[in-house]
């Protein structure tokens, strides 16, 4: 089966993922994208979500907190602000962040930054999804 190299880098942790994979399912600001080997050149922006990586018959999940994705026929490069494998995710923290963001959004206070709260909510949701924890 043909493979494509996936590289994920973050400013603080360096290269967090580098592996030959079969398929990547990711979500850009325009919607879901499935990337197979020999994909055309593409540059897009990602939203916070749980990426699905298919390799060797199995599927793993990886959390990305948004960023940019560049695709060339041989390589996918993802520049994320943060990226975490299921093992690195702090469930309690994500749950707390989820609750906090929901509360903020529920208040509908003009004082708070709606965009930021929504982004925080999306991040927490994606983290919990990667970990396989039901969303409260």
């Amino acid at each position: 089966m043909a493979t494509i190299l996936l590289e994920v880098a973050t400013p603080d942790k360096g290269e967090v993922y580098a592996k030959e994979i079969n398929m990547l399912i990711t979500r850009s600001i325009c919607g879901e994208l499935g990337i197979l080997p020999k994909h055309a050149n593409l540059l897009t922006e990602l939203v916070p979500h749980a990426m699905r990586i298919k390799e060797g018959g199995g599927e793993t999940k990886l959390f990305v907190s948004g960023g940019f994705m560049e695709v060339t026929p041989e390589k996918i490069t993802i520049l994320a602000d943060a990226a975490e494998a299921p093992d690195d995710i702090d469930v309690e923290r994500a749950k707390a962040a989820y609750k906090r963001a929901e509360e903020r959004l529920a208040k509908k206070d003009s004082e708070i930054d709606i965009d930021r709260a929504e982004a925080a909510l999306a991040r927490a949701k994606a983290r919990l999804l990667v970990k396989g924890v039901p969303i409260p």
Partner: protein
Amino acid sequence: MANLQHIRRRIKSVKNIQKITNAMDMIARSRFNAAREALLSNLPYVAKTREIMRRVMSQMRGQEYEHPFIKTRDELIAEQQEGAGKFLFIVIASDKGLAGSFSSNVLKEAHDTIEYDGTSETSSLDADDDDENFHRKNFDALKGIKPAGKRTPKQQRQMAATGGMARAAGHRGGGTSGAKNLSVAREYNDADYIEGIELITVGRKATTHFKQRGYNIIKSYHGISERPQYKYAKEITDLVMERFASGEIIDVTLIYTQFKSAISCTPDDVTLLPIVTDDYAKTSANLKEEYIYEPDVVSILNDFLPQRIATRIYGAMLHSAASELSSRMNAMSNATDNAQELVGRLNLFYNKVRQAGITNEINEIVGGANALE
């Protein structure tokens, strides 16, 4: 004859200083390890951002594409000929001293860059093959061009390039009689080009240095030089973007210290804005197919370029932090070694004086005994 007690006291004080420098060395060492770790973790991200930037920009080249941050060199020259616009410099130095020549080196580089008028060929930076180092290239391209209206600040300076020390002396407005003429001329030019410059400083040393000289500092960051955080880089980027988008600023340059190894750190300057597509020509051959941009090229670039600039600023801050700490480490371990040597010499002197005293006493006793016989 030297007083024994006096020497003893001196030895003790040197030993105390040695203890302090030794402690500072150890502190710098552990902080340096953390800073180097942070820098190394950041490098792949910077490299990848840069790769993508290169590919996208080399593709951008040759297309008649309008984006306020992206220009061809011809457009840049045309803009300069109109002579409108200020220069923005971001200078990253340290908060504290005691790091050898770290701060003075980066500040000297800052002055060299600010005053660069296309005449100096001495800089080793021109030789490096960093295709993103536009500042001097841009300036060299502008050499010999007479702006139509108001002249740009840098071009007003007709001074022949002198050595860095002479320049620095000129800036202090004093010095020897040889430098006096220079300093008078400098002062005059200083006042002229200060108006065309805005500064963002990171680190107290940079702030005080430029404040004394009357520069217009639009924002300073203190207390973050040893442990930079991404959010500050983002803040600086937002400010830079805002200033550049207002049209008042036509050139943004970053000056920082590049960390090469624990014993080698060199000041460096990079241009953040505008982005000149001509310099990405080298890689264009590799790329034949066009990119698909989702949703479209304008929105992608609007988000990607600030990201790229924030990444560069953050990277520069990390470089600077590692350089500062390694300079401090070197300075402090040198100081400790020197103190050790000084203690050795003082001990020798102390013993000599003590011996001389004993010999003297014996002489006196023997002399006294002889006189009794």
